């Protein structure tokens, strides 16, 4: 029996969060969706012994209390958490943000699409390949969508 996937989205924007959740349900309703509104809440969830660790984390950059860069660093420094692939999912497309987060260990940098069809395409590709060829999938995506994706 294949274990159902679990996605974690860390984002303080409620609109983007509900859209993401909606699209994810369309892609695959069996994927469990978890949400944290900032880095601090995310870490609390991730470090809690009772939590089921997500298969992939989508991390926004600009959040109150603890932002994406700090949260990413914490995740990559933790021995239980550092193996979880982290995709930066943000409104920014600044090269400085891209460089810093890729250096810190994010596997990919995605600028939030404004087109829900695109988002569905992206989430569906990722959901199908989380545990195999994730990087290759992401690279293919970056060449085939108008969404700004950097791997």
């Amino acid at each position: 029996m294949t274990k159902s996937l679990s996605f974690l989205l860390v984002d303080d924007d409620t609109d983007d969060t509900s859209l993401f959740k909606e699209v994810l349900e369309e892609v695959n309703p069996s994927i469990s969706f978890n949400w944290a509104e900032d880095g601090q809440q995310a870490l609390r969830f991730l470090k809690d012994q009772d939590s089921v660790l997500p298969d992939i984390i989508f991390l926004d950059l600009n959040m109150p209390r603890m932002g994406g860069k700090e949260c990413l660093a914490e995740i990559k420094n933790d021995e239980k958490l550092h193996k979880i692939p982290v995709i930066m999912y943000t409104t920014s497309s600044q090269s400085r943000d891209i460089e810093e987060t890729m250096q810190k260990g994010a596997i990919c940098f995605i600028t939030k699409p404004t087109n829900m069809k695109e988002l569905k395409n992206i989430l569906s590709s990722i959901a199908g390949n989380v545990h195999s060829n994730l990087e290759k999938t992401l690279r293919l995506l970056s060449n085939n969508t108008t969404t700004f994706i950097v791997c």
Partner: protein
Amino acid sequence: MILIVDDKQANLFSLKTLLQLNVYDVDTASSGEEALKKILKNEYELIILDVQMPGMDGYEVAEIITGYSKSKDIPIIFLSAVNIDKRFITKGYTSGGVDYVTKPFDPDLLLLKIKTFSKLYRQAKELSDIKDNLEQKVEKRTEELKQANKNLEVSNAELQQYAFIASHDLQEPLRKIITFTRIIEERFLEKTPEAMEYMSKIITSSERMRTLINDLLNYSSISVNPKFIFTDLTKIVNQALVDLEVSISEKNARIEVDDLPVVEVVPEQITQVFQNIISNALKFSKKDVTPFIKISGELVQKKSAKSKPSATGEYCRITITDNGIGFDEMYLDKIFNMFQRLHGKSEYKGTGIGLSITKKIIENHNGLITAKSKEEEGSTFIIILPVNQTAEHQTS
């Protein structure tokens, strides 16, 4: 005020009277010592000095007077007996003017000399005052300018920050507008084409606004802390071509890149420059003609589009030629202006900021950019960049 120095009271009296008749203020001293004391205390415009005095003679007094900085410029007229002692000539009194009058003296002649010398002295003093005044003014102005400059730098930094924050914060609500307008269009308006059409217009305008804000953001952050690195320009051009892959294959364009030199630049900014110019060349290509773009570069001597090539040149000239629709050279200045377009919005897409950003980047690199073109005969863009940035800073 004039000082008369003579040990004989009678002489003092007659000279004093003569001068006062001619409306001069007069002071007297009956010995060298007394004269020196008075000179230290008062301001005199002229000193009439008897040469033959007991104690210090006129020459000794004169020597001391010219030694004081306060009095060294005061003109001195010696009153001497018929046998003029040449000592005063050989001693070379230079400043203030020195003359002599023999006794018995001609009052008219003496008055003339007094007039001339005291006028000279007054003029010299005036000049010196003006000079001091000017120097003070210049210092004050320089301080004011320095302060104004500092203020400008502060306000400039503030403006740049403001532009950055404004563009950044403006993008967020805009993004939401675009996102949700699209959702409405997709989910609810399939059956109402008219509504779809209007929604499309909203989305198009919002996208345009987003591009504009992005470009403005770009423009405002160009001069902030440029980091110059020696970069192979061929690599930069190839990177720009990769970024434009889709357009290039869509238009079936042929691009030829010659070997380009290594130049000290801000890599991301120069990549933008090539991207902008090549994408323009693709955009403004002739409808039924395969676009052909050639990029070449060489070292040149001077910072000028017409400069001769030179293997030891300090500047690099890059030429980008296309076979597109060209433009009338009378618009040359305009195309580099922000928001200036030569075609309608619907004819060719674009915000009109691209070339002004390109120009700003080139200027930020202490270079220059210009173009040559003829309508229907393609365009050539010429960019000159200093090979070395630090040297450029020293000479500018």
